[in-house]
C-alpha cells in the first residue's frame, strides 16, 4: 500500500466533441485544452515532491561551501545565505505556478515564449551537469572513512545509480521514498549531533550572522574569493537548473494539472508507459469552483516550499554552521589552512569538531554524513537531469517521439553516467572541490536566466486570474539582477569566470 500526501482526485471529464473543445492559447505552440483541475490534497502533510528539492538543496552548498566561508569570514557572512535561500523559495513558488496550472515543465513554457531560450537551457544543462561534482565530493568524504580511493567509489556509485533506476517500475515513487528516508536520517542525525557537540554561543553567532545584512569584508571582494562567494550564493538551496527540474517532479507527482500527464517508468517496464500528450492542459479560471481548488493547490505548495524547502535547508545548514564554529574552536588555524589553498580543510576541520570528544571515529561519522549527502544529491541530480533533457528532447527534437519518454530518459541517464566515469578516470578535473566550484559558477548564469523566463512565462502565458502579483514579480526580477549582476561584476572586475 502506498500512502502519500500528494493525492487528489480527478473528476471524470465530460467527453468533449472533437472540434468544439475549449482551449487556452499560450504563445505560439499548440493551445492547451481545458480540463478539470483536481482538488488539492486535504491537509498539510509532510511528504511531497519538495523532497527532491531538499535532497538537492541540502547538498554540498550547505554542508561544505557555506561552512568553508564561515570559517574564513566568520558567521556574519551568512546573511548572504539567507538572501539566497529566501529568493529560491520564491522562485520555487513561481516555478510551481506554471507547472501546476498547465502540467507542462518550465522548459515547455520557455519554448512557448521563444524556442531558442529553451535550447539555451538544453545546452546549459549538459554543460553544467555532466560533471560528476556532487558524487565525487561525497566519494572523497567516503575515502576519509574507508581509505578507498574516491574515483573508485564514485565510479561504482555511478553504475549503481544507473542500474537502480533502470530496474525500477515507476521511478518517482521509489525515489521519493528512498530520499525521504535518507533525508530523515540525515536531519535526525545532524540535529542530535549538533545538540551534543554545539554550544549556545555558536548558535547565537550563527543566527545573528544571518541578519548581519551588508557585511562584506574586503577579502571577500578579492579575485580569489569573490567568485567562490558568488558560487556559494548560487549553491544556497537548489542551485543551477534544479528548480526548473522541480516542475517535472511536480508533474510526475500529479500536482495540479500534472494529474493529466503520465509518469516516467523504469527501463524494465518502459514498454508499459502510457503515451505522453503533446502539450499540457489548462483549467477553467472563470469558474469559481476551479479557482477555489487552485487556491488549495497554492496553499499546499506554499507549505511545501516554506516548511520543507526553506525550513529544512535552513535547519540543516544552521546545524552544520554550528559544527563549523565548533571546529574553529578546536582547530584555530583552520582558516589559515583554507586560505593557504587547502580547500578540503573545511571538511577536515568540521570532522575534527565531531572528534573533539577525543576520537577519530566521530570525525568518520561526519564524513559518513557528507557521503550520504553526496549520494542523495547524486540520486536527485541524475534523475532530474535525465528528466529535464528527456522532456525537451521528446517534445522539441523532430523524430524523438518515436521513442517513449522513458527510453529517452534512460538514454540521458546512461550518457551522463558513462561520461562521468570517463571524466573521473581520465578527465581534466583536478579533484572534487575544483569540479564543484566550476559547477557553482556556471549555475549562476542559468539561475539569472530562469528568473527572466519565469517573469515572461507566468505573466504572458497564464490567464490573468492566476498570474503572480506585483510583489512577486519584483522579487523574481530582483533575483535576475542579483544572479546576473554578481556574475558580470565578477567577470568585469576580476575577469574570472571559472575558479
Amino acid at each position: 500500500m502506498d500512502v502519500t500526501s500528494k493525492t487528489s482526485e480527478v473528476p471524470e471529464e465530460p467527453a468533449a466533441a472533437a472540434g468544439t473543445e475549449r482551449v487556452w492559447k499560450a504563445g505560439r505552440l499548440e493551445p492547451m485544452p481545458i480540463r478539470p483541475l483536481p482538488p488539492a490534497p486535504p491537509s498539510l502533510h509532510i511528504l511531497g515532491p519538495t523532497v527532491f528539492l531538499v535532497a538537492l538543496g541540502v547538498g554540498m552548498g550547505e554542508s561544505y561551501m557555506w561552512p568553508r566561508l564561515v570559517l574564513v569570514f566568520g558567521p556574519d557572512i551568512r546573511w548572504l545565505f539567507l538572501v539566497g535561500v529566501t529568493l529560491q523559495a520564491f522562485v520555487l513558488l513561481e516555478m510551481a505556478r506554471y507547472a501546476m496550472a498547465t502540467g507542462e515543465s518550465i522548459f515547455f513554457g520557455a519554448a512557448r515564449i521563444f524556442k531558442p531560450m529553451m535550447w539555451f537551457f538544453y545546452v546549459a544543462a549538459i554543460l553544467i551537469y555532466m560533471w560528476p561534482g556532487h558524487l565525487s565530493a561525497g566519494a572523497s568524504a567516503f575515502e576519509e572513512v574507508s581509505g578507498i580511493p574516491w574515483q573508485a567509489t564514485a565510479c561504482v556509485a555511478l553504475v549503481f545509480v544507473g542500474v537502480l533506476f533502470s530496474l525500477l517500475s515507476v521511478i518517482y515513487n521509489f525515489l521519493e521514498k528512498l530520499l525521504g528516508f535518507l533525508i530523515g536520517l540525515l536531519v535526525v542525525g545532524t540535529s542530535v549531533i549538533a545538540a551534543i557537540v554545539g554550544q549556545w554561543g555558536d548558535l547565537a553567532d550563527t543566527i545573528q550572522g544571518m541578519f548581519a545584512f551588508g557585511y562584506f569584508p574586503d577579502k571577500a571582494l578579492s579575485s580569489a574569493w569573490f567568485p567562490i562567494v558568488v558560487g556559494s550564493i548560487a549553491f544556497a538551496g537548489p542551485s543551477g537548473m534544479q528548480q526548473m527540474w522541480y516542475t517535472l517532479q511536480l508533474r510526475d507527482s500529479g500536482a495540479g494539472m500534472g494529474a493529466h500527464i503520465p509518469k516516467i517508468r523504469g527501463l524494465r517496464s518502459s514498454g508499459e508507459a502510457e503515451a505522453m500528450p503533446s502539450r499540457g492542459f489548462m483549467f477553467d479560471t472563470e469558474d469559481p469552483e476551479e479557482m477555489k481548488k487552485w487556491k488549495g493547490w497554492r496553499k499546499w505548495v506554499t507549505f511545501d516550499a516554506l516548511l520543507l524547502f526553506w525550513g529544512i535547508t535552513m535547519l540543516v545548514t544552521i546545524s552544520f554552521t554550528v559544527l563549523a564554529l565548533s571546529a574553529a574552536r578546536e582547530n584555530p588555524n583552520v582558516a589559515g589552512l583554507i586560505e593557504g589553498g587547502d580547500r578540503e580543510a573545511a571538511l577536515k576541520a568540521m570532522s575534527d569538531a565531531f572528534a573533539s570528544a577525543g576520537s577519530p571515529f566521530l570525525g568518520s561519522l561526519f564524513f559518513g554524513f557528507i557521503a550520504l549527502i553526496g549520494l542523495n544529491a547524486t540520486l536527485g541530480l541524475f534523475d532530474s537531469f535525465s528528466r529535464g533533457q528527456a522532456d525537451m528532447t521528446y517534445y522539441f527534437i523532430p523524430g524523438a517521439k518515436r521513442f517513449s519518454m522513458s527510453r529517452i530518459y534512460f538514454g540521458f541517464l546512461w550518457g551522463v553516467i558513462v561520461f562521468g566515469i570517463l571524466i573521473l578516470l581520465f578527465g581534466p578535473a583536478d579533484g572534487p572541490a575544483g569540479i564543484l566550484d566550476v559547477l557553482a559558477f556556471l549555475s549562476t548564469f542559468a539561475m539569472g536566466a530562469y528568473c527572466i523566463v519565469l517573469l515572461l512565462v507566468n505573466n504572458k502565458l497564464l490567464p490573468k486570474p492566476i498570474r503572480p502579483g506585483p510583489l512577486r514579480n519584483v522579487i523574481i526580477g530582483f533575483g535576475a539582477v542579483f544572479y546576473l549582476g554578481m556574475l558580470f561584476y565578477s567577470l568585469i572586475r576580476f575577469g574570472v569566470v571559472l575558479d
Partner: protein
Amino acid sequence: MTTETKIHQLVEFTLPASVVGISAGLIAALLGGFAGQPLGWAAITGLGLAVPLVVLGIGYSALVGLGKAPAGVFAPAAAYWAIGFPLAMLVHAITTEWAVTGTPGLPDQPLQFLAFRALLSMGFAIGFLWMHEQVGRHWWPRIMEHNVYAQHTVEQYVHLAESMEARKQAAARNRKKRKAHV
C-alpha cells in the same frame, strides 16, 4: 476491548516511533562509545538519549493513534518536540555526567542549554515525523487487521490513497477517450 489489549495494541502501533528514538540513541552511543569512554559509560550515555527519545516518541505516536494529533502533520509534532527534545537532551547530559563523574549533575547554564536544544528541536521534529511516516506506512497496514489504532491511522491515509487511485483511473480513462477520438 480490555485495557490490557488496548495497551498491547498501542505499544505495537508505536513501534515506528521507537525505531526513530533508537536510531538517535545509537548515534549518541556511538558518539560516547568512540569518544574514549569505557563501553559501560558509552552504553549509559546512549541509553540516556535513546530511552527519553523512545518514551517521548511513543508518547507522540500514541497521541496520533488515539486521534489526539493528526497523522503526518507538522505543527503538532513541532510543538511536541520543542519541549520534548530539550528534555531528552537534558536527561542525556545528566546521565553522561553521571557516567563520567559518578554523580549526576546539571549542565552549566541549564537555561541556555535548554534554549539551544529547543531551537534545534525543529530539525529533529521534521526528521522524526519524516522517519515516523516512512517506517509507519510499511508497518501500520501490516498490523491493521487486529490493531484498531493502526486501522484508525491507516484510514486517515486511505482516503488519500483512494483518491490517488481514482485520479489515476480518471486520467487513464481520459487518455483512452482522446485516443478513441483520434
